[in-house]
């Protein structure tokens, strides 16, 4: 490098980039995804392939329309991650057009309309899931009990495609309500939880993932492991997951203590539905969540409270998607009131006092250069 070539700030860089972040998140969600394939077989795999493919195609198409470079936009992995997260939140045997419409909506309306990666207001995958749930309630609430590859009841490769393409549908024997849906229906018939839960729910099975639901709703411990790994890698911070899970835990414990026959226990809430996935992988999306740590806690708590309210008193058995999208809408407001402290300044905006011993930095002292230069 010649003496008169200058690089702009930032000078310190930890090699993080959009593709690296997306890659880390994809890697963290991989175990739960593969476990989901084991539970639900080829149709689940086909659905994921369709959402990813349509997501990438729509991304490329939008970039082409906008006259922007296609290769870096498609290769940064954001459309890939959107496709995977969407597939993880869909019923595993949903027909192909659910996946295709969802992925197209997520990428085009959820992201590219706002200006592409990093500009979106709402989490694209959750926006698409909400759209699908509102538009196609029957297909979006047909859940099935696990049919692992070794059990003999699993569909083969060809049957898998027939299910995905909608030529054969899941028969009555294989469908079953998710635990949250079941609890909601039975409570509606004035049954108490003491009558409902035995025989339908074991906390251990729920944690290990032997339950019906979408791909990302089953194996809570694998999702949790992936989330903790992301925390360790500092891809995400603890504020949003702790806020979200903590709010659900506190609310569920409080109401459960008040009336155990009416309100499900906190363990059930934490281990069922897509709460774990939402807390670690969806609400933590850096684009659609607040910047300041305190704001992130507010955001997480808001998500958790909304999840509990929707699950307990709302019209749908599960509310993670609605909760995240609603709090996404509140993110600009949170960012307006809770701002991060500017670097080198106090909270009130005044420059921080410089400690006497830090006036000359150790680096500068070593090389003999004045720090002011």
């Amino acid at each position: 490098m010649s003496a008169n070539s200058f690089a702009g700030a930032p000078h310190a860089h930890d090699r993080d980039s959009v593709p690296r972040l997306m890659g880390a998140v994809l890697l963290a969600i991989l175990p739960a995804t593969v476990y989901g394939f084991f539970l639900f077989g080829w149709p689940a795999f086909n659905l994921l392939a369709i959402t990813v493919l349509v997501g990438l195609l729509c991304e490329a198409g939008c970039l082409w329309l906008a006259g922007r470079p296609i290769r870096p936009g498609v290769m940064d992995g954001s459309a890939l991650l959107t496709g995977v997260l969407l597939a993880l939140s869909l019923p595993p045997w949903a027909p192909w057009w659910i996946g295709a419409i969802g992925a197209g909506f997520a990428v085009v309306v959820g992201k590219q309309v706002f200006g592409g990666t990093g500009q979106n207001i709402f989490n694209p995958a959750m926006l698409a899931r909400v759209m699908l749930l509102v538009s196609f309630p029957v297909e979006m609430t047909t859940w099935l009990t696990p049919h692992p590859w070794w059990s003999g009841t699993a569909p083969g490769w060809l049957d898998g495609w027939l299910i995905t393409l909608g030529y054969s549908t899941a028969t009555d024997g294989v469908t079953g309500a998710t635990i949250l849906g079941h609890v909601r229906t039975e409570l509606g018939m004035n049954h108490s939880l003491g009558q409902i839960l035995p025989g339908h729910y074991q906390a251990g099975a729920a944690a290990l993932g032997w339950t019906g639901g979408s791909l990302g709703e089953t194996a809570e411990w694998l999702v949790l492991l992936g989330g903790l790994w992301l925390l360790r890698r500092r891809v995400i911070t603890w504020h949003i997951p702790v806020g979200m899970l903590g709010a659900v835990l506190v609310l569920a414990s409080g109401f459960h203590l008040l009336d155990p026959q009416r309100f499900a226990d906190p363990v059930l809430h934490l281990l069922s539905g897509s709460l774990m996935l939402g807390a670690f992988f969806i609400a933590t999306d850096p684009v659609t969540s607040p910047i300041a740590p305190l704001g992130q806690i507010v955001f997480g708590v808001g998500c958790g409270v909304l999840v509990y309210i929707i699950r307990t008193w709302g019209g749908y058995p599960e509310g993670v998607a609605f909760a995240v999208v609603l709090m996404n809408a509140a993110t600009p407001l949170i960012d307006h009131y809770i701002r991060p402290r500017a670097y080198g300044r106090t909270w009130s905006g005044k420059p921080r006092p410089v400690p006497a011993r830090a006036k000359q930095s150790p680096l500068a002292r070593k090389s003999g250069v004045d720090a002011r230069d």
Partner: protein
Amino acid sequence: MNDYRGIFADGLWNNNVVFAQMLALCPLMAVTSTATNGLGMGLATTAVLLASNVVVASLRHWIAPEVRIPVYVLLIASLVTLADMAINAWLHELYKVLGLFIPLIVVNCCVLGRAESFASRQPVSAAAADGLAMGLGLTLALVMIGACREILGSATLFSHASLLLGPAFTFLEITLIEDYRGFLLMLLPPGGFLVLGFLLAGKRVIERVAEKREVKEEFHCSVQ
């Protein structure tokens, strides 16, 4: 006359109530779940626009500028009441569908907007042309958005058109896909916003292409 061409070009495309001025969005979102509803609402608003423009233009020398807005509101309110009663009497089926939105034409900003910005300072004939052009532009927008939402939402086009226009127009009613499951979001308000947004983007694209072509032609002319 060139002037009238300009008025109609303004109303239908350049200064379209919906696609350029972004007015009348409330009735737009509410009634355009089918193309037929859009057509009915558009025609009703056109009638009110035409009448209010004519009345305001013919009374423009007698209305003191200080009280013009209340006077316009009063005039428009009477006209809308007339339209409401007329539709209730002669097009009762349509009235049942559009219901509340006919009286709400009175708060449609485009009616007051045209009265204030055009009819209050133009001769009656020009004002009438402007009212007609703006109304037809609004009708065009309502029918386009209604058609998009209807096709996507329930795979039909102009359903119940015979109720609005009489049994002679049954041929307009088209069912595109027989056992369509329905795309509920398109019939709900978000569908209206989505379709409006994409149509606005489409209009911008068309205008940009036309502009480019114009520049190219000018360039060619100057070279030759």
